[in-house]
């Protein structure tokens, strides 16, 4: 690693390559995600479908099935995975920078636990609250509840972690641990109350899945992930200053408290929007920023957009694996990301232990 750091010029050239390279990786992953899976789709089928969608040429009959699979299932699913993965990656990078901790992940700020609690409450109590309308409300009730729960938990954590107007990173982390524990305990109470079918729903929700992706959800996710993503990228310079420490960041002219609050809220919105529609997907936010840092260094101007692009690509591929490996059944995508992420996490721990 020191060998790559010792060469200043290639690093600058690599920095210029980040955006095109990241876009290429994401585009490649999305192409694979659209074409591959239990039902293979040929490139000809994709082009015919695109031509039809753009009104260039009518759809030939032999590609009707391809068009149906692409339009109804694959396209929204792959786009959703790319967006949510991007949000998780960038939020993870921002939280690691903010907490100055390579093992930080968006779950630390309580957003996942809060979303899980609210989602489980919606699953268990939703039916009895809304009765016959539950089916209708259910399509949006669960995402709404999860989104609100994730945000509320983060705001609670930020509130508890702020003493005398100063949100110290250590206090924030401990407040996050407490909020996570509390939300976990309340979730446990709800699981205890749930019937068998609900327990099964809860289990699959907490393992995450992109199978429910619909076109109607995409504009919502695009806005709720895209806007925080762009704003987080605009925080790259203050986050760079925070690499030195909070006092040092202030010496460099950063309004540290404002940056902290903004970064936490933006990360929470981006993560909660994803969790709301797919359930819990772990390890993307933890692992992806490190992969970008290994190749391009710690500069957040590169890490944030890089983690967004790579996070999108990784989740698209993880989802492809989730629906291919056990076809015609589907693995929960959270299981796939954890299978990839947990060994990496351990490697990271060992590497840190070795003093690297």
């Amino acid at each position: 690693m020191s060998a790559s750091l010792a060469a200043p010029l290639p690093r600058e050239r690599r920095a210029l390559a980040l955006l095109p390279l990241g876009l290429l990786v994401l585009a490649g992953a999305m192409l694979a995600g659209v074409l591959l899976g239990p039902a293979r789709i040929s490139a000809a089928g994709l082009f015919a479908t695109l031509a039809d969608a753009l009104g260039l040429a009518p759809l030939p009959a032999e590609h009707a099935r391809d068009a149906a699979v692409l339009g109804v299932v694959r396209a929204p699913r792959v786009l959703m995975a790319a967006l949510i993965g991007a949000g998780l990656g960038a939020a993870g990078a921002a939280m690691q920078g903010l907490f100055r901790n390579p093992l930080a992940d968006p779950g630390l700020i309580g957003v996942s636990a809060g979303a899980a609690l609210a989602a489980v409450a919606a699953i268990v109590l939703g039916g009895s609250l809304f009765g016959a309308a539950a089916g209708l409300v259910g399509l949006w009730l669960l995402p709404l509840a999860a989104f609100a729960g994730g945000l509320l938990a983060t705001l609670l954590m930020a509130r508890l972690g702020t003493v005398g107007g100063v949100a110290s990173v250590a206090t924030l982390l401990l407040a996050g641990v407490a909020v996570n524990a509390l939300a976990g305990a309340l979730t446990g109470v709800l699981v205890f109350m749930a019937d068998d079918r609900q327990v099964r729903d809860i289990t699959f929700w907490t393992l995450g899945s992109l199978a429910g992706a619909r076109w109607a959800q995409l504009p919502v996710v695009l806005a709720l992930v895209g806007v925080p993503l762009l704003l987080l990228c605009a925080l790259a310079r203050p986050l760079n200053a925070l690499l030195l420490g909070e006092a040092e960041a202030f010496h460099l002219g950063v309004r540290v408290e404002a940056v902290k609050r903004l970064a936490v809220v933006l990360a929470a919105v981006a993560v909660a929007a994803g969790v709301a529609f797919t359930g819990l997907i772990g390890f993307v936010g933890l692992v992806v920023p490190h992969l970008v840092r290994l190749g391009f260094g710690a500069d957040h101007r590169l890490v944030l957009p890089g983690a967004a692009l790579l996070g999108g690509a990784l989740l698209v591929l993880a989802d492809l694996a989730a629906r291919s490996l056990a076809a015609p059944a589907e693995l929960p995508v959270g299981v796939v990301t954890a299978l990839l992420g947990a060994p990496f996490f351990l490697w990271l721990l060992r590497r840190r232990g070795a003093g690297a």
Partner: protein
Amino acid sequence: MIAAEGATFRAGRRALLADVSLALAPGEVVAVVGPNGAGKSTLLRLMAGEAAPAAGRVACEGRALAAWHPLALARRRAVVSQHVALAFPMRAADVAGLGRLPWHGTPEAARDAAAVERALAAAGVAHLAGRAYATLSGGERQRVQIARALAQLDGAPRPAALLLDEPTASLDARHAAALLALVRRLAAGGLAVMVVLHDLNEAAFVADRIAVLAEGRLVACDAPGRVLTAPVLEGVYGIGFRVEQGGILPRYAECC
């Protein structure tokens, strides 16, 4: 430049600093010395604008530090803390480059690369530019941080101030001497410098004035020859001192 007037700072009910007045002037090095817990670092934090005094005031160019926008202040004064550990691996040149952050979006930003190069050279670490910061020795890291501060003040409207917290603490004698010589050169170039030091001989060498703190109070602030006398030092540190032409020596044997 930056001046404290009757500054008092409390932690809980305990006064860490009481009624301290100290002014930094361009071209002058002020060394702050005193026993552990005397309030040296607290005074540095107040002068940096990190904390506001409970009573009295700390001002830069006549305007209270709290009234300055952090960015505007960052273009007038730089601070080098005692230990700076990075959250993630970076090259030395990139660490120094962080000093240019306050100039982002100004015409000065066009000179970022040149400013960093100059700063690394002035701090004597140009040869370390491509090295990973984590692989540097304590002394090398300290000088990279000073380069970062110099990059920050490159192009700053004058007068500008540099605040250093025990910059020689982790340096051997040769590197400490080189660093103090650099501090003198920076002052000669027009910077107002405040440096917290433990070593009285280093203070005697580098300072135009020495401020002596004890239990949060400013005991003396004058030219080294007038401050570094056996009666003043014995009163502050509570042990004997032998002050000679060549230097200052605590009477270690008497303490046992």
